[in-house]
């Protein structure tokens, strides 16, 4: 079956490959690089936040050249010339950090990377349903990503109206915004192609015996995610087109008319609505946040089941909760818009849906934690990340509640409390899930284990420092410190809690250092990691039936499924795991 693949020339095998595993790895590596880059942007910003108007320290200062941050300024107090981030530079970095992290790092990593690599294997499929489409979606993603980065090099710098790009600010922003919009349209196209492929694969390519309720939770999570991408992204694509037209073709979809920009009236027909953008944006962006978390939850479920050596508790409720979560996520979007002047009727609706949507999350977390009861927990690196995910996600999720209620949102909206809330879900939440996934499936992808001790150091450092970064944010937010502030000491209440900001910055620096063992481990293990067979973790799902790494076409013989996904420690069996595949 797989003989042919050996004859493929290098570029066909590794560059323009149609093999879902290669594409998955391409996605993973590209996305990790974007993740590191997005973090780099944030380190520069954090330095400015902790030490406002101070010249940036060596490495960063020399990397940043003029088109990137605007200008080299003279420090007023010291007279020293140095590279100081400018207000526009800060905003550009912030907007790009958000965009890169969400659209270029986490989603491609979680869906493009893990989804691509693992989903067909777990379904017992030889490949994705449309291999060439799959390749196309990777390359579209890469083009969109690179285009996005070009924004840094145009006059005025990259998009600087926040990742939310609210008009009219974004209408009068630099050319970088146009590039941002083009980039988004391309990225959305890529993820649409991807999601069609995922759904068809998960529905049609399951092997014999693999009924829906025998699918690993990971596949379910990916399936729901794909539906979210499929149905929520197009409105943003439409909105992106409209904003593009507003910027280049003189239309005024988001321009109410008569704007006085620095004393000059903007020439436009008017009649547009700035709030329309917000509706279209959040119609995507709320489902999008579940796109960020669901694949993570999927990975966590796999790792926990494997390392507790027992079936997941409440598999069916997990599945139903994920589906319900997916559905509800389409009807809560306006909770990001409470303070735009929303009246009582609509806000009641959206508060209610927001409260309702927290219930399935509670159920999911409950199931995962009860799964620990009666287990025999193996504390290896993937499991450490998975276990720390749970309380971190809980903190992130719980702090969503005060934001979901209008009254408390009045004080907390647009403060660091929001930043704290969602970073707890995406950083120690999703990123940790991604790390767990990398450590867990690395042996499948490469045939070699990652080093366990480096992994533990990585975990410990990340866990400590990531909390040092994000915990202060809640207190900052409570104190009323706003987000997207170039220098919080400008305001009285901000100045009073600057110490917390300094702490978060040092946390971020520590977090960066804590990644060094990971990077070393990642590359070093490729050549020197311990070689392993098909099933090093003694796991049950189908991907562990295929050889490591699986050849083109995946399975030596088409598997047949006889069991549910998490049959661990079945009484009476000789081993503590019973594989899904018979034969």
């Amino acid at each position, binding site marked *: 079956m797989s003989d042919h693949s050996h004859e493929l020339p290098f570029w066909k095998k590794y560059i323009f490959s149609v093999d879902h595993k290669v594409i998955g790895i391409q996605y993973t590596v590209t996305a990790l690089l974007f993740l590191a880059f997005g973090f780099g942007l944030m380190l520069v910003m954090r330095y400015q936040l902790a*030490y406002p108007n101070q010249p940036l320290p060596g490495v960063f200062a020399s990397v940043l050249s003029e088109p990137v941050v605007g200008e080299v300024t003279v420090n007023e107090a010291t007279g020293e010339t140095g590279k100081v981030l400018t207000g526009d530079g*800060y*905003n550009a970095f912030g907007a790009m950090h958000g965009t890169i992290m969400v659209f270029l790092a986490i989603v491609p990593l979680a869906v493009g990377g893990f989804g691509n690599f693992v989903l067909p294997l777990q379904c017992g499929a030889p490949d994705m349903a449309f291999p060439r489409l799959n390749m196309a979606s990777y390359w579209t993603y890469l083009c969109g990503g690179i285009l996005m980065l070009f924004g840094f090099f145009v006059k005025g710098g990259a998009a600087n109206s926040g990742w939310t790009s609210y008009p009219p600010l974004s209408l009068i922003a630099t050319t970088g915004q146009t590039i941002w919009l083009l980039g988004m349209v391309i990225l959305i196209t890529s993820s649409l192609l991807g999601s069609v492929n995922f759904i068809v694969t998960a529905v049609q390519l399951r092997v014999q015996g693999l009924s829906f309720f025998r699918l690993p939770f990971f596949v379910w999570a990916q399936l729901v995610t794909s539906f979210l991408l499929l149905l929520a992204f197009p409105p943003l694509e439409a909105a992106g087109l409209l904003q593009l037209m507003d910027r280049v073709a003189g239309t005024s979809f988001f321009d109410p008319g008569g704007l006085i920009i620095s004393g000059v009236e903007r020439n436009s027909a008017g009649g547009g609505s*700035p709030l329309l953008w917000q509706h279209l944006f959040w119609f995507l962006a709320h489902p999008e946040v579940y796109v960020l978390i669901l694949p993570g939850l999927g990975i966590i479920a796999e790792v926990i089941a494997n390392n507790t050596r027992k079936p997941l508790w409440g598999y069916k409720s997990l599945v139903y909760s994920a589906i319900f979560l997916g559905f509800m996520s389409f009807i809560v979007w306006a909770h990001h818009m409470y303070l735009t002047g929303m009246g009582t009727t609509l806000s009641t609706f959206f508060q209610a849906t927001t*409260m309702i949507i927290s219930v399935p999350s509670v159920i999911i977390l409950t199931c995962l934690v009860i799964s620990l009861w009666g287990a025999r927990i193996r504390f290896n690196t993937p499991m450490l990340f998975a276990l720390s995910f749970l309380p971190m996600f809980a903190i992130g999720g719980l702090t969503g509640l005060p934001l979901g209620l209008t009254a408390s949102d009045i004080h907390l909206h647009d403060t660091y409390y929001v930043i704290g809330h969602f970073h707890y879900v995406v950083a120690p939440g999703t990123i940790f899930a991604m790390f767990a996934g990398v450590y867990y499936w690395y042996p499948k992808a490469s045939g070699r284990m990652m080093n366990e001790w480096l992994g533990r150091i990585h975990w410990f450092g990340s866990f400590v420092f990531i909390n040092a970064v994000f915990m202060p944010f809640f207190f900052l937010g409570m104190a009323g410190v*706003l987000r997207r502030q170039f220098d919080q000491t400008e305001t009285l209440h901000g100045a009073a809690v600057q110490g917390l900001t300094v702490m978060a910055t040092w946390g971020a620096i520590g977090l960066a250092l804590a990644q060094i063992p990971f990077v070393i481990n990642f590359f070093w293990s490729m050549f020197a990691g311990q070689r392993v067979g098909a099933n090093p973790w003694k796991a049950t799902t189908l991907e562990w039936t295929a050889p490591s790494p699986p050849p083109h076409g995946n399975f030596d013989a088409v598997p047949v499924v006889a069991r549910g996904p998490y049959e661990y420690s079945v009484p009476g069996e000789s081993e503590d795991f019973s594989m899904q595949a018979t034969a």
Partner: protein
Amino acid sequence: MELLAQAADFGTYGKWMPPNLSVRGGAIDQLIEILHYFMAVLFVGWGIFFVYCLVRFRSGKGGSAQYHPVKGKASKYAEVGVAIFEAVLLLGFSMPVWGEYKNDPPPADKRVEVRAIGEQFQWNFHYPGPDGKFGRTNAKFIDNVSNTIGLDPDDPNGKDDIQTIGALHLPVGRPIYVRITSKDVIHSFAIPTMRVKQDAIPGMEVPVWFQIKEGATTANLLKSKSMNEDFDTAKTNWYRVRHLVASKDYADKSGQIILAEGAGIGLSRDAGEKKLKQLREAGIDSINMHPENPLEVICAQLCGNSHFKMKAQLYTYDDAGFEAWKKSTVPEVIEEF
């Protein structure tokens, strides 16, 4: 004297939430606090279970894992409990507060009305003047120095209107009704100490209303002990110092004044640090300071490169003081047209 006593407990910056000086703000704080207790209970309860499992079921102990799922209704109760509690918070706390925030505006004859117009990067305020009527405005009259809101000089209603830039003057103890809009991009009118926040959206005008607590006048706040207690030593870092003025002059040994009463300190961190060092060298490590002005209106929506410093000073007065302020602002600017 009584007022001063009151002024003593207006709260401090930097501790949990900023001081709450509005009558309705307490309800918001209360909700936030209840929520956090609720969250803490959930998190701790859940955490205890979690840690217990980690310890008790670690693999080192041997034996095999338990295949059959644990039975028990605890999780069901917890989930239902969470749902019910959320419903209570929503119906019992959030909605009433929001309803009050949105539904019954104070009657027109009782309230002090003012328009707040956002602009990159300043807040413009527009008072109706003694006749209680706002003058017409139009873009073509906008002048960036004397008439930022474009008040129509020919409109009789506008003759007595008052415009201010970057300074909002309000009376305490009376309902205040702010009509919020913007000239260019979206801003957000926010006064953390009043627990008020509302986006300022071009093409729309959205009102908010609130009432400042009796006694919370700027004059009292400056005297308030607790409001300033965070700021009272030179050991405090420069970030705090930056917004403070000394309450008397400080000189070094040679008699040179280092820190003068009424002077703000430095723009940058270095300048602040330098001053502090000088003070310490002069043997002064405890000084009394108070904020230059304790209340600020800020902008909570990203609106461009100077968004972070788009703010206005909020001055609060008792009734007499407010009248005096109004008198002092003879709308000369308008007369000039």
